[in-house]
């Protein structure tokens, strides 16, 4: 009997450990977070998990020991059972619980406080607008408005510098979540929510929407790149630049088709396409995914997306665009020049 009971407890502990480890694969685990706030929250999470596991283990052990120990000895003479007072154990247990809880509480408060205020005044501000189902990201530079620009579904962060994020919704409630960097903040229509993020380690990770917002809630991926401040400045300067004029004939005719058939909804800076219904495509070719994550950004997928977006991403506001084969080839050629 003891063997299987021990086996059960052993399995539980293993299960807990496995759970922690299993969450650690992939790039969207908050336990893997490297950002300042994310790291603190991950540490808190790990502490709480550890405490919980220990508590469960201790309680299990205590229960099992209580079961194993059985009842108190029966006095053969009187038939009455000896009652061993467990009050000491209760005091002991309470004391430990209180200490642990207080420590956890203190730790939580410290973490929440650290996560709510950036360590330094943020130099960079992002205005993020959640749409169904894509993220509009605008970088602001208060001192140099012309260094500001808009992009979509991608966020770059300079390492070691806090970034202020202002969140707005264009339609329903979303939640802005960069699991590797920081915790979630809801994006609520009618108000502007503020948060801050700070990356600590270079790398690429994935952001997503953390609040169910409709059919394609899962297809709102953000490409998050944390890089050195110099690389970040270079990237920002590049993004603020308008699109270069196409050099090949195909791309040139694609530019004309684009301005005519896509420009009412999309923007490519430096051209007549200045629509704001859909994502800004000025540097579209340097983004890895299309449509918030439904497809990879390659020519075939792009053609499928342009001609059949409603069947690929059900409910998307991107309609099926009626272009003939020549126009389609030209537009795709043009889009690929938008680095």
């Amino acid at each position, binding site marked *: 009997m003891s063997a299987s*009971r021990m086996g059960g407890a052993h399995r539980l502990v293993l299960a807990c450990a496995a759970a922690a480890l299993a969450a650690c694969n992939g790039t969207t685990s908050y336990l893997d977070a490297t950002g300042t706030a994310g790291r603190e929250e991950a540490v808190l999470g790990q502490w709480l998990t550890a405490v919980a596991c220990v508590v469960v283990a201790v309680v299990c052990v205590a229960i099992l020991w209580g079961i194993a120990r059985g009842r108190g000895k029966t006095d053969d003479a009187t038939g009455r059972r000896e009652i061993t007072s467990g009050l000491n154990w209760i005091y002991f247990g309470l004391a430990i619980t209180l200490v642990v809880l207080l420590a956890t509480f203190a730790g939580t408060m410290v973490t929440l406080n650290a996560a709510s205020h950036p360590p330094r005044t943020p130099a960079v501000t992002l205005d993020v607008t959640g749409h169904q189902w894509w993220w509009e990201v605008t970088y602001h530079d208060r001192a140099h408005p012309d260094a500001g620009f808009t992009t979509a579904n991608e966020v770059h962060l300079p390492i070691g510098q806090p970034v202020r994020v202002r969140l707005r919704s264009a339609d329903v409630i979303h939640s802005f979540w960069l699991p590797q960097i920081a915790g979630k903040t809801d994006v609520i229509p009618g108000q502007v929510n503020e948060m801050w993020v700070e990356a600590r380690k270079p790398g690429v990770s994935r952001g997503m929407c953390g609040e169910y917002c409709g059919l394609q809630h899962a297809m709102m991926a953000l490409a998050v790149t944390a890089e050195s401040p110099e690389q970040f400045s270079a990237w920002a300067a590049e993004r603020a630049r308008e699109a270069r004029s196409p050099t090949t004939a195909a791309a040139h005719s694609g530019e004309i088709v684009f301005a005519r058939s896509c420009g009412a909804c999309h923007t490519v800076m430096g051209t007549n396409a200045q629509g704001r219904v859909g994502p800004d495509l000025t540097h579209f070719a340097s983004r890895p995914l299309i449509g918030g994550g439904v497809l990879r950004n390659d020519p075939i997928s792009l053609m499928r997306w342009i001609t059949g977006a409603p069947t690929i991403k059900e409910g998307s506001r991107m309609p099926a665009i009626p272009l003939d084969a020549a126009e389609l080839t030209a537009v795709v050629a043009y889009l690929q020049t938008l680095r």
Partner: protein
Amino acid sequence: MTCKAHVAWAALACAASLLVACQRKEQDLRGGAAAGAPLRQPQVNTSVMDTTGLPPEGALARVAIGDLAGIGNNTLDADVRSPYAGDLAAIKEGQDLFVSMNCAACHSYDLKGGMGPDLTDTYWRYGGAPADIYKSIFEGRPQGMPAWGRALPQAMIWRIVAYIESKGGAFPGALADKARQGDLADQDTTSGSTLKGRNNVR
């Protein structure tokens, strides 16, 4: 159940949940070797999103703006009906397009007109049947109405038409040959809509 069984079930449940977690799809954002196929989508009726049910391209080119010389009747094809009339979801999308394509800026957010004419009354210079409204949007008109036919897909223009229809001024297609300015001012003229299509009093 015995305690042993409880523990066993709990462990099983734990393991099961872990195994499920391990099935998560890897998303490679570096554009590496991950598959490019779209994720499996739930099967949903997509008929409202596709282009079947719309008049064929070019059919409306045969619809005349003016009266036909020699015959006196406009032979608007009665089959050219408004595909989204009464479809509330499409009308809502048409309303969003009406604002985002800057129609509201010329025709005003309540469609009562400003730089452009009133779209809620029954006076239409170029015809008030849905097909005529579609043509006016698609082709543009001489006093500054831009031509949207190459900028917007058919389906989006028809959604805008459905929205305008829902505001009460449009005429049913079958009455198009009678629907010159003011001819039907004293009749309910809206097709399929619960709104009365009288001249709106300002």
